[in-house]
């Protein structure tokens, strides 16, 4: 373990933290909007996986990462549309349908992948990176902070935009009203179901984008079941962030660091089994929930379908 604090180790730790954090950040930001509007979106894991699959497939077929991201968004949206119709429009149980959509996306992507690629896992070319002269050359943090794909900076921009949206705009207020007191919003002339559908679709798009990032940039390939709980961690991030996008960012960086220890420790030549290291992010989630669980603030109408005139 003497090589633990070398430049290679620290650099791969920082890089890994950011690469691992971005999918969770996108998923967490997406989930946050659903939760604000009163929809507990357990199907997000499925949206992410579908985004990863579609994103990879499009990027692989067209040789374009950007089209891949569009494909990922569409993949996430497909699952989100099902969620919006079933849970918001028809008011079905959000947890039953959420589990159903997650399992369905797992099965469907594994099945489609099998019939397209059989047992091969083709790789995408390594993406070109943003290069800011001077900054990117800084030791240790340079390549990790300033040498990422453009999508990373767009995700950071999304944090700021969402924070402003929630605080300063009518749309932000309407979202909150749909989650805290849908009946009041309805009486005031707002469209509860409409705003919830919007929130669920936004979640799908963000989760799909996160999935596409995971497959196309994080791994460079698609493997069935590859999200491995990242979507669920996104739900935890949203729960703990109490409606604040910046907290989702901080949380995703912490969990990203925990995840990236896997690769970083391997670089350092440690012989701890990967199973143990893979436990770190989930253990971190549990620790945080034990310490701060009581403070997780959720909208009061979360999980309840809105039906006009129902008591």
């Amino acid at each position, binding site marked *: 373990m003497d090589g633990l604090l070398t430049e290679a180790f620290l650099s791969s730790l920082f890089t890994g933290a950011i690469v691992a954090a971005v999918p969770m950040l996108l998923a967490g930001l997406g989930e946050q909007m659903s939760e604000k509007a009163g929809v*507990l979106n*357990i199907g997000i894991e499925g949206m992410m996986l579908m985004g990863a699959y579609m994103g990879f497939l499009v990027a692989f077929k067209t040789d374009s990462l950007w089209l891949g991201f569009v494909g990922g968004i569409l993949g996430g949206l497909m699952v989100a549309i*099902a969620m919006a119709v*079933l849970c918001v429009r*028809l*008011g*079905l*149980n*959000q*947890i*039953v*349908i959420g*589990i*159903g*959509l*997650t*399992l*369905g*996306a*797992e*099965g*469907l992507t*594994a*099945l*489609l992948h*099998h*019939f397209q690629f059989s047992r091969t896992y083709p790789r995408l070319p390594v993406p070109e990176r943003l290069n800011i002269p001077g900054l990117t050359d800084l030791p240790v943090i340079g390549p990790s902070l300033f040498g990422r794909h453009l999508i990373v900076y767009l995700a950071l921009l999304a944090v700021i935009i969402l924070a402003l949206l929630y605080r300063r705009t009518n749309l932000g207020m309407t979202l909150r009203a749909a989650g805290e007191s849908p009946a009041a919003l309805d009486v005031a002339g707002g469209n509860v179901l409409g705003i919830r559908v919007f929130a669920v679709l936004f979640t799908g798009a963000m989760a799909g984008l996160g999935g596409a990032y995971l497959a196309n940039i994080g791994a460079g390939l698609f493997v*069935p079941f590859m999200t*491995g*709980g990242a979507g*669920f961690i996104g*739900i*935890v991030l949203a*729960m703990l962030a109490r409606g604040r996008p910046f907290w989702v960012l901080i949380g995703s960086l912490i969990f990203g660091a925990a995840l990236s220890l896997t690769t970083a420790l391997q670089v350092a030549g440690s012989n701890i*089994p990967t*199973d*143990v290291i*893979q*436990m770190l992010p*989930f*253990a971190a*989630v*549990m620790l945080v*929930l*034990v310490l701060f*669980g*009581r403070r*997780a603030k*959720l909208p*009061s*109408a*979360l*999980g*309840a*379908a809105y039906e006009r005139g129902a*008591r």
Partner: protein
Amino acid sequence: MTMKNKTNPGSVDQGASAADAAGPATERSALQRFLTVTIGPIVAAFLLSAIILMLVGINPLTYYGYILERSLFSGLGLEQTATRMAPLLFLCASLIIAFRAGIWNLGTDGQFLLGAVVAAATAPLLVGVLPGWAVLLVGFSLAAIVGAVWSIIPALLKAYQGVNEIITTLMMSFLGVLLASTLVKLVFRDPATTVPQTRTLPVADRLPRLFDTTISSGLIWGLVAVLLVHLMMTRTSFGLRLRMVGANPAAATHAGLSVPLLTLATFGLSAGFAGLSGASEILGVAGNVRANWNPAYGLMVIPLVFLARFHGVGAIVLVFFYSALLIGSESAARRLGVPQDFTLVLVASLLICLGLGEYIDHHKRKKER
């Protein structure tokens, strides 16, 4: 408050009992209801999955026909189906307790695997030290205890901090699956083999087989578990208390029940049965745990329990057919080249069609009123 009522799994049950109590419901409407909320979703799910099979270029009739033939119309297949029912039945028992008490235990996979690993780690070492029945008893008991222990954190968080158990049990499940794998590789590894796996319980020391068949007697214990749980939840005062907590925690508190303690009991029992499920697979069939082994039955049993409306007998019938589906699809993966992941698609369709059936039924009843 309304939120808690609508999100907890017990609320589905309330709808059902409200209909039962409606009084002069004619036989015809009971049948209609059965068609809408049970048979309809099953048929619809198979049709929906058939479309997906056609999309990937497989003839659904061939596929479904193969599964039926392989799992129900062949002697060996039928025996395998019956054997596979055991762990699924224990899981149903686990979920019936949790869902009736209004708790979403989505962590059964972790509890199942840790139970399995503990049973596999201890039982082979005890052979020869203890009589055969005692070896099995110790294996099952330890599995139940370890399964229950794995639910303590979500249970405490839910009971005393009000933290949503959906997330905590899922997280503990991921942790449990990884921990089980680690234990197999580092702690309980059989030094005699090159592949990482636990020591193997000799066939003679496993649960006895039934008569002249290859069916493991775990099936009997699974049936007993589901029926006992059913009776406990519907016929005892303890079960009534759990259901009260599930139906309306605030009302239960006002009625003088200790909701936190009953919540802890629910978690312990539910997770304990999930642990037993793991042990039944190891002590009955597999004999050891290989590293990274995870059948992931946990989430797949959920639609069965919902379709059965948390009723033990209904669950047993559905488990039989689901078990046949698993056996058939495992064989189809080798013979027809359709990966087993297809069962996930089928289970997902089942969950969604179940919700739709519930929706149609709800609106029909509303119109009648």
